[in-house]
């Protein structure tokens, strides 16, 4: 991936030199997939914890605040009387999450935190995913005008950034570890780490422990990667469709067909993406509940 990033850096420089005739297709895509981070340049190495993605963080906090605001609006007016439509809709979500949590986590005490967490994650991830529905160039172009830098980077879908999704799945991992220790006790959990899943025998201890580590790592990484992969791919397809539309004026006779193709493919993909956006948010929430539920059960 670092090659791609370097290519992105190069492309950005080339783009600066070749600004007169606009970016090529490759430059357009690479530019759109580069984060606006704390250095102002594309990140060179795969892992660099001195850098922070400002755009991801901004949009994730903005959608997070919107989530809290929407939920708070409903909570503020919550009465046992006849609910309005908005109230009913939020209550529908709450009931859905509460039912799922009740089926998966059999501890009233844990549910007091885990169920609201699941609701937040569902609405928040949905809103972050839904940033994909905005035309791919609107917010980046707006940002380029505001900042005055016409090559400024801006990515608006936080869940298409691996940092955001792995950050959330790491949060779920921490909750899993916390509930493992809370429910089974530190000793009980360590005992489980070495004796499950293959059985209690000194020879099997290292095997068991290795399996447990792999299990936790696999859960967390697949949890974050699944959401990231879906949203990243979705964003990329939107960009490709936008590229197709952008070519309509320059290619003579096939131009109108490209325009039509943009409209058609854009509509179809956006409609299909509604499903993906909701489904991925739901899956992320359900997996968080399932993993935390597993932390409550002994092997």
């Amino acid at each position, binding site marked *: *991936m*670092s090659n*791609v*990033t370097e290519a992105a850096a190069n492309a950005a420089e080339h783009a600066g030199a070749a600004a007169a005739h606009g970016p090529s297709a490759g430059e357009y895509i690479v530019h759109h997939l580069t*984060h606006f*981070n704390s250095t102002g340049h594309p*990140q060179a*190495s*795969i*892992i*660099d*914890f*001195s*850098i*922070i*993605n400002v755009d*991801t*963080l901004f949009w*994730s*906090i903005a959608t*997070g605040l919107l*989530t*809290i605001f929407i*939920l*708070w609006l*409903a*909570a*503020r007016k*919550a*009465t*046992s*009387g006849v*609910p309005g439509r908005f109230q009913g809709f*939020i*209550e529908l979500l*709450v*009931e859905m999450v*509460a039912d799922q949590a009740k089926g998966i986590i059999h501890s009233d005490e844990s549910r*007091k*935190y885990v*169920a*609201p*967490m699941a*609701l*937040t*994650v569902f609405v*928040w991830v949905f809103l972050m995913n839904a940033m994909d529905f905005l035309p791919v160039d609107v917010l980046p172009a707006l940002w380029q005008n505001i900042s005055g830098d016409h090559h400024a980077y801006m990515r608006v879908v*936080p869940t298409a*950034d*691996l*940092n*955001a999704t*792995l*950050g*959330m799945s*790491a*949060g779920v991992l*921490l909750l899993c570890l916390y509930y493992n220790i809370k429910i089974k006790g530190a000793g009980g959990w360590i005992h489980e780490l070495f004796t499950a899943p293959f059985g209690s025998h000194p020879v099997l201890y290292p095997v068991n422990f290795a399996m447990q580590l792999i299990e936790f790592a696999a859960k967390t990484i697949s949890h974050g990667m699944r959401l990231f992969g879906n949203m*990243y791919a979705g964003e990329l397809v939107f960009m490709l469709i936008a590229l197709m539309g952008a070519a309509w004026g320059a290619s003579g006779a096939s131009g109108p067909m490209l325009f039509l193709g943009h409209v058609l493919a854009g509509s179809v993909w956006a409609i299909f993406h509604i499903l993906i956006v909701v489904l991925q948010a739901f899956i992320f929430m359900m997996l968080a509940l399932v993993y935390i539920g597993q932390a409550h059960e002994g092997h």
Partner: protein
Amino acid sequence: MNLNATLFAQLIVFFILAWVTMQFVWPPIVKALDERAQKIADGLAAADKAKTDLAHAEKKAVDELKKARESAAELRVGAEKQGTQIVEEARAEAARIVAAAREAAEAEAGVAAQRAREALREQVATLAVAGAEKILRKEINAQAHADLLAQLKSEL
């Protein structure tokens, strides 16, 4: 697809948002939902109770109606009986009055007849005297023959 410190920032945001929801959003909504569920349960129970009450009341009303009809029928039978009795009594009374009236009339008629007979007797005595006078062509002393006349009167 690079990893950087955004991961930790997102992790912290995740916990803050979850905490805020737990603190300020979840409890009031769930409380309202539970209260509404309780209200609906109460409402349904009340509706059931009202339904059974209604059934009871209808049954009671039917019973009362039946009872009222029975007592009305009873009353009518009694009234008819009483009416018949009153008519009978009236008829008997009327018959009695008629009989009494007839009796009185008969008695009166008897008295009148008696009186007429008495008057006739007087006149017959006078006629007899006049007749006898004409027959005898002589005056008969009414005083001297009073006994004879009285005897004749009583014989009539």
